[in-house]
């Protein structure tokens, strides 16, 4: 169930330039699944809207949510100032999450780019923990970074075959995640991706070419985060069942979509 609750900050650290790793104590961790996000509120009254931030980790047992975010503007700058013991209002869990069951017996290809990297961490973890009958046949993880600041890559390594791509070529494949897919000839399996729109568009057509399913997580400016305001739509190929026009709500019908269904 979605809730807005006040959570206690457990830790906060910078893990790359302008990239922060925030852990909070929250009962929302219980229900959260990878690919979902939360609406995080700044304590500042001038900022009305929650910031949508993907769930990078959800420890059910300990009740800990983890977020990895980049300082983008006022809201994320506010978050970066939080210290252990501070309190934070969080609305969540929001959205649908990645369809983890689609990868049973198949190659799971996890692809993240830039600040799209974090949501795939919990996905990688959960995929790697599945019982044999529900598990994918392989877990390939392709993460794209700007440069050698390959945040979270050490953790990804634990859950699958990690391929790194960097814009500046300082680590791994020189180029985009699609370049890496090509170079490593990853042509079968189910793609789970998150990242900037050009990357997702590239992946959607790559997946199409190779007849791979691609589940991509989208971003849009949001107001409510719960499907009420119609602020955050994406164009769909067919008339959407809820809206009755060719619009789906990213916050509720997504953020994860089957790339085939979208008109990107």
């Amino acid at each position, binding site marked *: 169930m979605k809730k807005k609750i006040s959570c206690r900050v457990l830790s906060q650290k910078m893990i790359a330039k302008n990239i922060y790793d925030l852990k909070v104590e929250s009962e929302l961790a219980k229900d959260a699944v990878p690919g979902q996000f939360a609406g995080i509120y700044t304590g500042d009254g001038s900022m009305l809207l929650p910031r949508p931030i993907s769930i990078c980790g959800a420890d059910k047992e300990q009740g800990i949510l983890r977020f990895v975010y980049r300082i983008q503007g006022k809201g994320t700058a506010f978050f970066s100032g939080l210290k252990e013991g501070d309190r934070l209002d969080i609305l969540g869990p929001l959205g649908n999450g990645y369809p983890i069951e689609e990868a049973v017996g198949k190659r799971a290809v996890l692809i993240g780019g830039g600040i799209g990297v974090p949501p795939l961490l919990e996905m990688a973890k959960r995929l790697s923990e599945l019982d044999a009958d529900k598990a994918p046949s392989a877990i390939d993880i392709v993460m794209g970074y700007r440069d050698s600041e390959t945040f979270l890559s050490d953790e990804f390594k634990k859950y699958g075959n990690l391929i790194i791509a960097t814009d500046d070529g300082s680590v791994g494949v020189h180029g985009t995640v699609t370049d890496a897919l090509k170079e490593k000839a990853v042509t079968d399996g189910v793609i789970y991706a998150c990242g900037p729109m050009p990357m997702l568009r590239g992946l959607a057509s790559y997946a199409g070419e190779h007849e791979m399913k691609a589940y991509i997580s989208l971003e*849009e400016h949001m107001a409510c985060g719960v499907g009420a305001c119609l602020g955050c739509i994406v164009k769909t190929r067919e008339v959407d069942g809820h809206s009755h026009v060719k619009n789906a709500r990213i916050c509720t019908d997504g953020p994860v979509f089957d790339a085939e269904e979208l008109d990107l």
Partner: protein
Amino acid sequence: MNTKVTIAGVEFKNPVMTASGTFGSGVEYGEFVDLSRLGAVVTKGVADHPWEGNPVPRVAETASGMLNAIGLQNPGVDVFIERDLAFLEGYDTKVIVNVCGHSEGEYLNVVERLSDDDRVAMMEINVSCPNVKEGGIAFGTRPDALFNITKLLKEHSKKPLIMKLSPNVTDIKEMAKSAEAAGADAISLINTITGMKIDIYKRKFALANKTGGLSGPAIKPVAVRMVYEASHAVNIPVIGMGGIATAEDAIEFIMAGASAVAVGAVNFHNPYATVEVIEGIEKYMRDYNVSDIADIRGIV
């Protein structure tokens, strides 16, 4: 302690409603609050056929407020009746349907379609929507155009009509009087104030639509002023809204002259806001010995 209010013969258990477009048709916020606690659910604007709305970005945050240019996306009145009204039937609250259209004819289609539906308590006519053709925004900014559409819809409606006024006018009193003269049963205000935001790094408008409607606590002082002016200009009930976040805010509107109030953009900040406002009003009434909410209406 009486929190009941009656508007055009319709009794509401308390004066707290949802502001159209900020609460969907109730489903989404039903996860957070008990819809049966609300005075009324005012639905997202509905037209006679599905509307696609505007391209994204459709929303942008501003200081203590937000801009939106949803463009009145809606599934059309048929789906609305089958799905949304059916859902709302399950709750002990009144339903006010917000109506939009591109032309008088389109408004009329919706009004006539809903006129005989028992589940609809009232209709709220959004004549302040920024993208209507044929007179367009004129419906909400020109007294004569407002008069005409009000009169037309009243002639065909079996339900009481609330005319929702735009704040983007020189004289809100004049608009309120036009609506009253044409037979409106009530007026509601304010709709959003037209605003704009520019992203100076992208050198682009923050909204695809260039302009959007400003709402949230930022606009409350303007809304309170207009509710005060309007409620002193007419004898029909006024439903006040614009930036209400707390019971204090709601009571401010009531003291300015509103018979009922609506909680809008603040739902996005606090999904429990509607019920918290209701509880806060009850507490205020207890603490300050207000036996009937009507006793403080327009008290300043």
